[in-house]
């Protein structure tokens, strides 16, 4: 399926990237999304004023360090924010439907069926006391119209057949027998595959993959990323790939959104953002990575730490670590869209070389 001798990989063409960046067909649109958590110490604005678009069929990368709000943004999209957290403002449009005001039953009908999310840690996301079969069939029985319309007796048989099919699709050997096993009997890479199988069971239009490979070794990471890319191509779905690894984004994603401390700092076509980063944070992130191509090149870390977001003042969130900061940065900075399909949240961005 993903052997070494598979034909040369597909490189997204410049034209395709440009057409996607230039509007196209949006499946998910976030505007001004803000999510806060009330704590004893104050309000944490974990996600603030996030604007982003996911095009149909594209792979969008979301990059940021821990605490940058990447996971909370998409937990908000999926309606998974529980008190003390809440979405304070903004809109989430999925295929034309506003999700922030959607009634819970309608949201349940949508979630898992038309959009699905895989969680970072497969071992905690899967239920340890249920077999893989039970967990896979649960989704199919809840959402798969083909299965739901069957007479009750045939439903389970059909759901099992679909579960076997999904296990085979994600490349798990001997799916029939392995279905009856529990999550702890699988290796890390296999667990991640099972989560992907559950997420894809109803052929969603949008897959949100939250750090799908962070806990995995590079050789297994390569397997899982190939799997997601192959499935995206064959099922024609959109993928949001949340990661902290710019290398993964560079290889997998058409466009990238860079987040820091709960805000979008920069977004645009991956090749351009990596070649010519405009935001000082993106630049710093790229400069602090050791490169395999040039291992002797010095790395330049970004000084300081991610600020605490409790009662964070209204100013540029990267101010304390920025090498271009000026007094004007102590105001609320908006995300500015550029005509070339890129956006930056910076008053003094790097201009074109």
């Amino acid at each position: 399926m993903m052997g070494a001798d598979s034909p040369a990989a597909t490189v997204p063409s410049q034209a395709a990237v440009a057409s996607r960046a230039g509007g196209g067909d949006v499946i998910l649109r976030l505007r001004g999304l803000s999510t806060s958590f009330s704590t004893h110490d104050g309000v944490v604005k974990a996600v603030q004023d996030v604007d982003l678009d996911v095009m149909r069929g594209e792979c969008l990368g979301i990059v940021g360090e821990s605490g940058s709000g990447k996971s909370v943004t998409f937990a908000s999209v999926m309606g998974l924010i529980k008190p003390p957290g809440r979405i304070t403002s903004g809109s989430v449009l999925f295929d034309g439907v506003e999700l922030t005001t959607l009634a819970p039953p309608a949201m349940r009908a949508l979630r898992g069926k038309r959009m699905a999310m895989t969680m970072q840690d497969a071992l905690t996301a899967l239920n340890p006391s249920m077999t893989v079969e039970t967990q896979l069939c649960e989704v199919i029985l809840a959402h798969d119209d083909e299965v739901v319309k069957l007479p009750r007796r045939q439903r389970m048989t059909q759901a099992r057949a679909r579960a076997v099919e999904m296990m085979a699709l994600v490349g798990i050997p001997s799916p029939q027998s392995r279905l009856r096993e529990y999550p702890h009997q699988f290796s890390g890479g296999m667990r991640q595959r099972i989560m992907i199988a559950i997420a894809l069971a109803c052929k969603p239009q949008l897959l949100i993959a939250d750090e799908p490979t962070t806990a995995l070794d590079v050789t297994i990471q390569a397997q899982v990323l190939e799997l997601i890319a192959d499935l995206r191509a064959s099922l024609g779905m959109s993928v949001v790939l949340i990661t902290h690894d710019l290398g993964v984004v560079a290889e997998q994603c058409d466009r990238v959104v860079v987040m820091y401390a709960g805000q979008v700092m920069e977004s645009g076509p991956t090749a351009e953002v990596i070649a010519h980063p405009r935001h000082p944070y993106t630049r710093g992130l790229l400069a602090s990575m050791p490169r395999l191509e040039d291992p002797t090149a010095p790395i330049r870390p970004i000084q300081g730490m991610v600020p605490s977001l409790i009662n964070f003042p209204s100013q540029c969130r990267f101010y304390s670590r920025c090498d271009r900061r000026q007094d004007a940065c102590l105001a609320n900075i908006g995300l500015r869209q550029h005509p070339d399909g890129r956006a930056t949240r910076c008053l003094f961005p790097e201009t074109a070389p």
Partner: protein
Amino acid sequence: MSDPILSVQGLVKHYEKDRSAVERLLGKPRMVVHAVNKVDLDVGRGETLGLIGESGCGKSTLGRTVLRLHEPTAGTIRFDGADITTLEPKALMLLRSRMQIVFQDPYASLNPRKTVREIVGMPLLIQGMKDTAQRDDRVHAMLRRVGLRDDQFGRYPHQFSGGQRQRIGIARALISHPELVVCDEPVSALDVSIKAQILELLSELKSELGLTYLFISHDIAVVAHLADRIAVMYLGEIVEVGPAREVMQAPRHPYTRALMSAVPRVEALGRRQRIVLKGDLPSPINPPSGCKFHTRCPAAMPRCATQAPTALSMNADATHLAACLLYDASARASGAPEAGTAAARFSQKEPS
């Protein structure tokens, strides 16, 4: 290597899995985990040796066994010329001031009930520095060096971020002026920008204090950045070792090639053709026969299943070794596929 500070020969570390009384009565065979298998390795004075491999390949066990944190099952460990394989506890304790370790998990490796000052001062206290004022002087200087502020010295580990805790772990390792430091995945738990800060700190300290690092990591880009030489481990064995640049740019062992090609690269932009290994790491309880990599190897030959490869020299001065039958001249003599053709067949699968 003219003057290795650490020299390991035929090092073996096996763990026996517990059997219950019932299992023993029923005659269930002993289950032995082959964590480290006949490893030969030298670490030169003042160099950084990077040790890479996937989780479960035995790299951490190797790092801990050379420090005698784990007792070796067989083999010899020489530190600075002296055999320390069977050194008794008292002498070992004194030796520990010369060899230290920085652990991976900055959350689990610091005692939550002790202040930073106590944690970092502990090695000195154990080495017999009873005078508190004298000890605190050393501790404070070291903590300042790793980037902590004076008002933080009395705090507890939970009051620090992951990056700061790793700084504390580094201070604790370096306080006794060691010569050899085993860094066991010191930056794996850290974010990109913090990781870079810690890597910078580790390189600065190395040149300031003349340290030797055995740097264990699964992050190949990090190892490539720091290491002078690189050793690649697979299922308890070292499959390739050589100068960092050579191993990175011209890897010889099929496993190293697959590993290198699997690392996502920022420059790549778009999916590259890569060697994707099939399947997972086999269990170290019943490791495959012959070459342990043959079950996943894209260039495997029939004889790989039966014959265990030995380390062969890959360059003129024998500093680059790989343990693979592709380069074994006797393979050609015995009528097996021509090594040259096998290598050529394999190299076609390299990323272009």
